């Protein structure tokens, strides 16, 4: 039997997702209409013989997370449990800490997935690949091709092209190593814990020799990438399964949520065609891929898409234009307004003829291997033009423009703003 472990992180991680992460833990942020995590869970539940899904992270149990898990279990008919780390243990530490739970029931293998990636989740293909490559108990990393310049922002994998063995692994190198990058989705088996265990022992010994330091250098904090993969490379145990570049992305910043939405909406053509809106008599004009929740109220003269997700209870007035944006639950867009490259927070209101616009940070469309940039917030002392984000319950008055700005929750604006963070 098989299991899946999803690493969901915690509140200290994912600060690049503010102000959206003030309202909801990042793994629950809706991407293409459903919580980020749900895409992972749907993919895992589809794998034959999947018996349990475990979530590991260090969020305090909260209402939303609990409610999400209860609903997901009911919908997908598979046990889902949340295992809370007592402190940030790193991508490997949490796995090691809960190893007993993971190996209980004797799964032959288990997937490990990072919550903040967007993917087509070729899990069944990874299973077949594992059976055909290397020893019986080899491990598989999902990889994809990046371009030279951007590859250094990720974990780089050097592979033996014939056998697909991972010969060398470096996390975020400062010089070019390889254009094959780590997608954050792995296929392990219980043998992995031997390797993590020896790193754990070594850390403990090192700690005894050194002065006590703060947080990160606890023995239990183990990073899969730097500590485990680097050591396993070239030992005949680690293999890479490559997937198409255009179906994978990281979701680190709010801007990348829009890009990830686009990828998932595109995948819906094969995975969930019922989630895509179409042009209907008496309905709004739909361009490209658009998700509209059934409880949303949309005037027939509005034009939506491409790449738009509309949440529950959203109201969209006459002559509204929405493009490349996410409109979260309960928001109201009044007549003739225009929302481009933006995320409109829960219960926000946008006044008549207002213009809410951001700048997409999309990867270069001419480069098939380009990835979305994790742009810094500021560059040369100025705010980098990026997606406009309205936090929850923000009010934008009529006829103004909000351009390349981030507005924190519960703010009532009274004029136009450009290139600013509004507290």
């Amino acid at each position, binding site marked *: 039997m098989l299991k899946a472990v999803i690493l969901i992180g915690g509140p200290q991680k994912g600060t690049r997702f503010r102000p959206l992460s003030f309202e909801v833990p990042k793994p629950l942020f809706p991407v293409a209409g459903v919580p980020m995590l749900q895409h992972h869970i749907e993919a895992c539940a589809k794998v034959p013989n999947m018996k349990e899904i475990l979530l590991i992270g260090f969020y305090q149990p909260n209402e939303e997370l609990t409610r999400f898990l209860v609903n997901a279990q009911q919908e997908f008919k598979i046990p889902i449990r949340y295992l809370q780390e007592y402190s940030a243990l790193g991508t490997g530490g949490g796995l090691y800490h809960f190893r007993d739970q993971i190996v209980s029931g004797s799964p032959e293998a288990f997937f490990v997935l990072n919550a903040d990636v967007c993917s087509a989740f070729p899990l069944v293909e990874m299973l077949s690949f594992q059976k055909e490559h290397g020893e019986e108990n080899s491990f598989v990393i999902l990889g994809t091709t990046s371009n030279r310049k951007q590859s250094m922002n990720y974990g780089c994998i050097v592979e033996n092209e014939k056998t697909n063995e991972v010969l060398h692994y470096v996390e975020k190198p400062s010089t070019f190593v390889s254009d094959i990058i780590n997608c954050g989705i792995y296929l392990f088996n219980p043998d992995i814990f031997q390797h993590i265990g020896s790193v754990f022992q070594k850390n403990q010994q090192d700690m005894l020799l050194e002065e006590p330091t703060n947080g990160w250098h606890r023995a239990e904090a183990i990073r899969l990438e730097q500590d485990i993969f680097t050591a396993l490379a070239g030992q005949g145990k680690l293999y890479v399964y490559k997937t198409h570049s255009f179906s994978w992305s990281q979701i680190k910043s709010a801007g990348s949520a829009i890009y990830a939405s686009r990828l998932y909406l595109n995948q819906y053509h094969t995975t969930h065609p019922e989630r895509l809106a179409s042009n209907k008599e008496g309905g709004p004009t739909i361009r490209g891929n658009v998700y509209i929740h059934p409880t949303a109220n949309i005037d027939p003269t509005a034009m939506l898409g491409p790449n738009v997700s509309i949440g529950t209870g959203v109201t969209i007035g*006459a*002559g509204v*234009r929405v493009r490349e944006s996410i409109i979260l639950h309960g928001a109201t867009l009044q007549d003739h307004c225009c929302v481009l490259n933006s995320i409109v927070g829960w219960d926000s209101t946008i006044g008549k003829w207002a*213009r809410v*616009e951001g700048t997409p940070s999309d990867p270069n469309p001419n480069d098939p291997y380009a990835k979305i940039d994790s742009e810094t917030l500021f560059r040369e002392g100025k705010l980098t033009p990026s997606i406009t984000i309205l936090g929850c319950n923000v009010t934008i008055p009529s006829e103004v*423009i909000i*351009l390349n700005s981030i507005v924190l929750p519960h703010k009532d604006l009274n004029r136009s703003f450009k290139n600013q963070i509004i507290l």
Partner: protein
Amino acid sequence: MKALILVGGYGTRLRPLTLSVPKPLVDFCNKPILLHQVEALVKAGVDHVVLAVSYMSELLEREMRVQEERLGIRISLSHETEPLGTAGPLALARELLNVDNEPFFVLNSDVICDFPFRDMLQFHRNHGREGTIVVTRVEEPSKYGVVVFEADSGKIHRFVEKPQVFVSNKINAGMYIFNPSMLSRIELRPTSIEKEIFPVMAEQGHLYSMELQGFWMDIGQPKDFLTGMCMYLQSVRQHAPDRLRTGPGFLGNVLVDPTAQIGENCTIGPNVSIGAGVVVEDGVRIKRCTVMKGARVRSHSWLESCIVGWSSSVGQWVRMENVTVLGEDVIVNDELYLNGANVLPHKSINESVPEPRIIM
């Protein structure tokens, strides 16, 4: 009576509009600038208008023939082939102006106001001297030529060009009346009327100033063109309110040509002038703008403080503001944002212009 209008040259400050037509023919509130002046002159008894131009335009010549017919007056063009300054053109047109012994008007072609030509004539005859200059009160006199004069008689003492410290808030409004005898003061060479002619006349007690009542604006650049439009429309409200469009969807002073079409759920105004054959589609908001003949503004767009040139097309869900000027036949594609864009004629805009710049 005669009048000389100093039209000048290429009107470069009002580009891109003046790349398509000579400045006197640019429509101001749905009527060519020049016609505002000429019609007022005709009402005051002028039967011969001389246009002093430094570049000859066939378009201008043709249009003047039409107006001659229509108004029943004579319009001549006096063409300076080399620059003559602000006084030289008067010398060039000497033959045309010095015919009878009647005083003649001179005006700057960029000026818009409630033209006081009959009052000027009266005032000029009363003081009996050689020249009268109309002055107007402004808030920032240091940008202009300031006039210092005796409050009761209007007798001018001196001029100060662009004063650094406050001297007076009355400036030269660009409208004059002269007796033909003053023409002998001007040689046919580049001459500045403010620096060389006026000071001498003032010294000799031959120059008087009349204060203008009501609004005044030099509409030679887009920002001032729009401000002048607001003032003019306010004046229309006071004198001829029936010319303005009112009703649901119209706020404040709005002038709409009868052949223009306005869609549903629009909010137009305050301070908008819409020219002949313009189409404004549904759900459009326009404030403080001039929309020239034949232009189209597509649905759900929002425009404030803009000039939309002849036959241009503004797409759907476009936002334009901050003295954006579209020349003739410009196409702005859907969903763009133009902030202070100055767009030359026949250009197609596919990208937003978030900060003011010129699009060639």
